[in-house]
């Protein structure tokens, strides 16, 4: 039963990614060229609503279904991993024109070369796991 909920969430998310054009390489390029407000509007409006919503969740201690706590654990404090990791991610995001969510959406949309990007992302994840202990965190 719960699986169906996750599947529906995924389908909804996939449609939103595609229809918003956030899954389009062109929109990512245009964003980094500061050529349109579109992507900033998407991320910005999601963020404003997210900040307001999470503020109220915390203020009124709203629980998830079943009375469990919401998954809002603070992230580990550090600068190096977020900055270096973030820069590497940004280089890839701008080159492939896709971040992890849209990759799956584009695969479903039938753009087979995206499978090369997904293969690269799996390889990158694997290599990070192997090198993890040697990297500054």
């Amino acid at each position, binding site marked *: 039963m719960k699986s169906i909920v996750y*599947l529906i969430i995924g389908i909804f998310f996939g449609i939103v990614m595609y229809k918003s054009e956030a899954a389009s390489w062109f929109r990512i390029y245009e964003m980094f060229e500061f050529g349109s407000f579109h992507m900033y509007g998407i991320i910005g409006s999601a963020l404003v609503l997210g900040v307001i919503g999470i503020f109220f969740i915390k203020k009124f201690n709203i629980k998830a279904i079943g009375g469990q706590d919401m998954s809002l654990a603070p992230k580990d404090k550090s600068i190096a991993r977020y900055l270096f990791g973030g820069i590497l991610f*940004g280089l890839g*995001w701008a080159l492939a024109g896709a971040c992890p969510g849209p990759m799956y959406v584009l695969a479903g949309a039938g753009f087979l070369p995206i499978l090369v*990007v997904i293969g690269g992302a799996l390889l990158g994840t694997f290599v990070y796991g192997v090198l993890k202990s040697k990297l500054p965190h």
Partner: protein
Amino acid sequence: MDFIIEPWPWYVSGPLIALTMFVLLFVGKQFGMSSNLRTACSIGGAGKVSEFFRFDWKSQRWNLIVVAGAIIGGFLSNQYLSDNTVEINPEVAEKLETYGINSAGDAYLPTELFGMEQLSNPKVLAILLIGGFFVGFGARYAGGCTSGHAISGLSNLQLPSLIAVIGFFIGGLVMIHFLYPIIFNQ
């Protein structure tokens, strides 16, 4: 019926992304797409090589189902909900032409990179593979991607997420303003 086929404006799309995050929170989960890549490595046996991949991946099954949904959502959108073209700022499209990318306005993804015939072009394959590699490596190093940091983390006012998002933009701007002229040199 035009509103179905037309792209959705930012003020519709952004709130729907926030809704996705809130629905996941209400069912006790955290919105984050790149962690599925780690899960996939674990399922593939990467735990033999690195401790990083030794975790109970079955606890992440829910997120793999979200991915399955996203794939279906992409299929449905492409087939029934879109004319599969993306209009961008004409000046930006003109600049892309100087890089040999002429499909802005005619396609959803540039045919020069994502057309089927490109699968036999070694330069394009290298671009896609290396781009994907950095996305995967960087997302795990930074502990999240656009969904985990730029949406979930920043919504929760996490300073680490702000640092990561600043990093995303440094990397993206360097790629497009300094490396594109070299990579896509005509």
